[in-house]
């Protein structure tokens, strides 16, 4: 679920210490100040970027895509890419 459950007061709280939803409402893409860009001419779909992304912001698909909504711009994917198909571009 990607919708944020709104808590306005005690009445909206769960009856016990139980979670009401997942953190996916939190679009961490806004944290980013550099953005990975995949060069699909070079990409071999080895999936190392997917494997090492700490934010699950690379799709598990052939070819992989960056999910900009969540990518925090850490640069791990670009560093780990064995064929240098990912570059980090300044800005969002």
């Amino acid at each position, binding site marked *: 679920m990607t919708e944020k459950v709104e808590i306005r007061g005690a009445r909206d709280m769960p009856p016990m210490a139980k979670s009401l939803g997942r*953190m996916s409402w939190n679009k961490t893409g806004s944290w980013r100040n550099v953005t990975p860009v995949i060069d699909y001419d070079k990409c071999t779909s080895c999936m190392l970027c997917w494997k090492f992304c700490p934010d699950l912001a690379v799709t598990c698909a052939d070819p992989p895509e960056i999910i900009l909504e969540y990518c925090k711009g850490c640069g791990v994917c670009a560093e780990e890419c064995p064929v240098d198909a990912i570059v980090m571009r300044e800005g969002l």
Partner: protein
Amino acid sequence: MAEVPKKLTIPAEEHICSGHLACQGCGAVLAMRYALKALGPNTVYTVPACCWSVIDGPFPYTTLGVPLFHIAFEAAAASAAGLAAGLEMVGKEDVNVVAWAGDGGTADIGIQALSGAAERNDNIMYICYDNEAYMNTGVQRSSSTPWGAWTTTTPARHFKKRPKKNLVDIMVAHQIPYVATAAIAFPEDVLKKVNKAKQIKGTKYLQIFASCPPGWRMAPEYAVKSVRMAVNARVWPLLEVDNGVYTITRKPRKPLPVADYLRLQGRFSHLTEEQVEEIQQMVDHNWERLLFLEKSTHEMAGIPLEEKKKTKEPDK
């Protein structure tokens, strides 16, 4: 949607979601991601105070797709032991009960509860993600911080002058069935070891080396590279100890100089060449010790030590 690629070396299914609150390049998240891929949905976590208490999200939200109990700092192993006993009483035998704690919560603050659970051989898996300091509160020294490292409580002029606590041997001394080390740069190995631990009844202890870019004073893109270098420089050996029998699970063909590993991180930037050499000697000495332990424990158990295929990939 494009189809799932065939070349995957770890399962595609995820049990954590995006949107979590970890810093850019957090190794602790990768540790959790890989561990859960092996554990699967039939798992329950107890997490004491550590970065993961924050990463998971504020109440009433969560990042994991499995139940997680936030508990007091010193209580990871005790609460997991209680959960395991409760599940046993209601006849649920197929649930993985995992205590998940940082190195501070394991080597310092939770060691009493951990030792108690291990001595009783309670049926829990204890996983420590080791980023070598108290990161959540702003990088204070823990007993798992290595010799030579800067932290806010061991500033550069008074860097840590004591070696990293050897928790692996402490746990082996408890004579539990399984103890292992892993590292986030080797996900397949993490999965293999967690999968193996999952099948074993009793206390299982795993320590996963996980980078923390802000705490290590390092650019976030090196989160995985630095950990790979730690293993390939033999700073963090990958091990498995089955009922007291040591096996080194990765033997770098051409080990990296320790200096290469240290150079990536600001927390070691104050060290002189002599001090780096001192660390190299400690690392070499530890490796020799492990080779000796591997050989002698295999001999004593009457298990032939198979010559592991030397790793083919370049030790970059």
